Structure formats: C-alpha cells, structure tokens
C-alpha cells in the first residue's frame, strides 16, 4: 500500500502513543501530523486514550480559557505533548526564540510559547521536527527556550522522550544527556543522519529500519481520521487524504 510522508510520520507517532501509561495526548496549535496521530491512537484504543487538540473547538475539551491546558498539564493530567524547535541541540535543549546573541538576535522566531513549562510537567514530550538539517540540529542552541535536562533538586516530572524527523527516530536518555538513534526511515541511511546532525548521538550496533505504516492503520486514517482532523485542519486533510484516496 503506498503512502505519503505525512501518513508515514503519523504512524510512527501512533506507535509511540501505543503505551498503557498514555491516557491523555494533547496537541498544540498548528500541528496536524501529531493531531492525526493522537486521533489515530484514540481510535486504536477504542476511546481509552483521550486526544485534545488545542486549535479551534473541534476535539478541544477546554472551557476555562488559555490557562487550562497548562493547569491540566501541571496537575499531571496530560501524558504526552509535542514540541518542536527552530534549533535543537544534543542535550535536547530547544530554541524557539532566535539565532545570534539574544536580545540582539540575528533571526527572530515567534517565541517560546508554553514550552518552558510543558517540557517540565508532561512525562512524555515528543520532539517533532521534520526538517533534519545542521541548521536545526546544532551543537548548542543560541537561546534555551526550554532545557532538555535539569539539575538535581529541580522538580521535573516531565521531559523529552523521543525525537522524530524526516530521516529517523531517536530516543532521549536524560541521565546520559544524550540522544540514541532508534531507527532510520526507509530510503535513508545512517550516514545521511550523521551528515545532517550537528551533535553527537549514540548509535546502536545494529541500526534498524523504521517500520512502514500498517495497512489497516492507513485505511483507518483515510476512512475515519481524515474527516475528524478536517474539522481542525481542512486544508491539511484535503491535501493529504483526498490525494491518498484518489
């Protein structure tokens, strides 16, 4: 069964969500791929997994204003959240603010959003950054919007667990302060990952290939999730799923 790169990434994320400790997946604004994965995880779990999409009113359960997502996460009611980064370094520090010597930035990005809080309180933060380049994966971020690890004594039930890009899937070991390569996506190589990553990471003896999407999940995506995500991201839904269905 052929599939798009979006469908591939959705299915990789859905596997990360297939975990009994995951009860509630929240997805921030402008994140259609994680949003599809959260809805797929809900479908696969027959509704056991709750999926909250914080972008418009569809699949958004919050009624107490912008603060409720953060209060909910602070209470430990959110198990998975997604963050990105204009820059991400080898210790999983993320930069959403700008390049250069802050505040005299060379290039300004939108800002840290809620990352400086969510990275601390959500147990399983998935870093999702499709662009895999040395521009993004730098030796050291220019500005720490949110640190990957914290000193002992800092209250931190949450943190980064995985990093998914267009080339590979990595996991993060907070004790070793290091990423570990889990698998390389079909059609790509370890060399390609190394060439496009500006920091050192652990490589297992045998690097596996990221599995392709399961055909039953692709069918579920196209039949049931497409319409559901379309309530939040109509342009994304028609681009990705109408073409897949055609």
């Amino acid at each position, binding site marked *: 069964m052929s599939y798009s790169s979006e469908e591939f990434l959705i299915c990789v994320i859905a596997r990360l969500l297939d975990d009994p400790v995951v009860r509630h997946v929240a997805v921030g604004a*402008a994140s259609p791929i994680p949003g599809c994965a959260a809805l797929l995880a809900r479908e696969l779990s027959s509704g056991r997994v709750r999926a909250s999409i914080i972008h418009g009113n569809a699949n958004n359960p919050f009624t107490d204003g*912008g*603060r409720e997502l*953060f209060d909910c996460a602070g209470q430990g009611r959110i198990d998975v959240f997604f963050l990105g980064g204009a820059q991400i370094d080898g210790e999983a520090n993320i930069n959403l*603010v*700008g390049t250069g010597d802050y505040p005299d930035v060379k290039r300004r990005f939108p*800002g840290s959003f809620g990352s400086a809080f969510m990275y601390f309180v959500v147990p399983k933060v998935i870093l999702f950054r499709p662009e895999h380049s040395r521009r993004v994966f730098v030796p050291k971020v220019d500005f720490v*919007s949110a640190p990957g690890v914290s000193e002992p004594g800092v*209250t931190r039930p949450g943190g980064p667990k995985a990093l998914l890009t267009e080339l590979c899937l990595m996991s993060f070991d907070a004790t070793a302060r290091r990423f570990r390569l889990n698998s390389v996506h079909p059609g790509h190589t370890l060399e390609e990952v190394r060439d496009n990553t500006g920091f050192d990471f652990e490589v297992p003896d045998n690097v596996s290939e990221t599995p392709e999407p399961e055909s039953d999940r692709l069918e579920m995506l196209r039949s049931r999730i497409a319409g559901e995500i379309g309530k939040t991201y109509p342009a994304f839904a028609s681009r990705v799923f109408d073409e897949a269905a055609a």
Partner: protein
Amino acid sequence: MSSHPSLGELAAQIDDGALIAVPPEYSFVPMALVRALIARGARDLHVLAVPIGGMAVDMLVGAGCAAVVEAAAVSLGEAGPAPRFTEAVENGRITMRDSTCPAIHTALQASEKGVPFMPLGGVIGSDVIAHRDDWRVIDDPMQKGGGPILLLPAIKPDVAIFHSPMADRDGNVWIGRRRELMTMAHAAKQTFVTVEQITDDDLLADEDTAGSTLPALYVSAVAEAREGCKPLGLTGHYEADRAAIGSYAEAARTEEGFRAYLEQAGLDAPGMAAE
C-alpha cells in the same frame, strides 16, 4: 451603561504609553479597535499578548504604536511569521519581553486575586528567566528541599481590549468559553469591549448565558463594531478570511508593502509617518 461610544471615542480613551492586554488569534481579537488605535496614532503602547500575539500585535508594531511587546510568541499562525514584529525585533526598534504562555496567565491571575506575585512550576533553567529582571527564582519556602521555584510579579494592564458577539443594555458581555477574557478583564484597570450587537436580553438573567458572561462590573465601555474581528474570525459568527490574512502577511513583508496595506484600509498611520 446608558450611552455607547464610537470606535474612535473608545480608541481615544486608550492613552499613549498604556499597558494594553490583547487576546490571542483564536479569541475575539478586536481588529476594528486596533485599526482605530492606529488611525488615532497611538504611541509607546506596551502591548501584552495573552499569551500569543498575531495580526493585531504585528499591525500595532508596524504602525509605530508599540514600544514594548510582552508575549510568549508572536506569529500569524498558518500564514507564517509576523513580519512587522520580526523586522522590528531584529532591528531593535521595539523592546521584546519574552515570556512563556502560563507565565502570562499566572501573572494576570495574581492581579485577579490582588496579590503581588504568584509562583509557577517549570521554566527553571530557561533563558527566558535569565533575561527577565522582574522575575525571581527562590527556594520553595513551604517545603524544605522542595527546590527552586519561579515567582512572577502580578501584571495589571491599564486596559484590556476584546471583541465579542454581544453585550446587553447593562454592559454585561458574553464571552462563551473564551475565559482568558474573563481573567484579562478581572486583572485590568479598565476593559474596553467592541461587540457585534447590543441585545435587549439581560445576559445575567438567563442561566444559559450567565455563566459565560463577563459582568458589567468589570467593563468600562462597550462600542458597537459590526464584523469587528475581521479579517480574523469570530467563532460561531464568521470564519477567518484566510485569503485576506495571507495578503496581509505578503504585503507586510516590507515597510512599503505594509504602508500600502494601511493606506488601502483607509489608515494613514500617523505614528508611522512621524518616524
């Protein structure tokens, strides 16, 4: 509340240099009032995005109305980066006070409660703290060995502004589930609201609307402004005009393009011309 000011009269009541709280793109952004602020040539505003800024913040910055922006982020969302904001920060033309979403909510909640500061979890080790000399990190005073915790000073906006579908004759304003507007109004010294319509119904008399209504107690003035969120959307009333927002994003990539956009909208932006 007996008489309703015009948009221009409302804009005239927002002083130069005021700290104004503006809601995020998904929450009742008063674009018509923002245009009226630009038209009146507002200067030196300290714009607080609650907690993320969009087109309103970008236009206020571009038109020379804002000296300071405090936000967790400023972006046009799917239409891309906020071009005038980005240019102004990169060229040091405004002071950017970087924050993070729950810090802005929490600092407003401190004002809501009338306390001088509030603690917030997380954030320790973020460079956001390193560049905020008004924030403090202390050892948890309630629990020995509890670790460091961030304290945020209360934010008390001079003015909160937003646009709602309706207000009643007494000045009670319906906000639905957009309860950050409630927090903004509770925290602010004054709240100016524009609405699609004034209803003859008493919003507090009906249990179905009372719970989603900001009482007139917190509302300083209401002005009617049909389609007051456009080109942004107003949930349940009209969708965001993606094409119009896209045209703005394109035009505002340059100073000249932005100026032409304002002229086309009938705004001469005195703030900008004075530069």
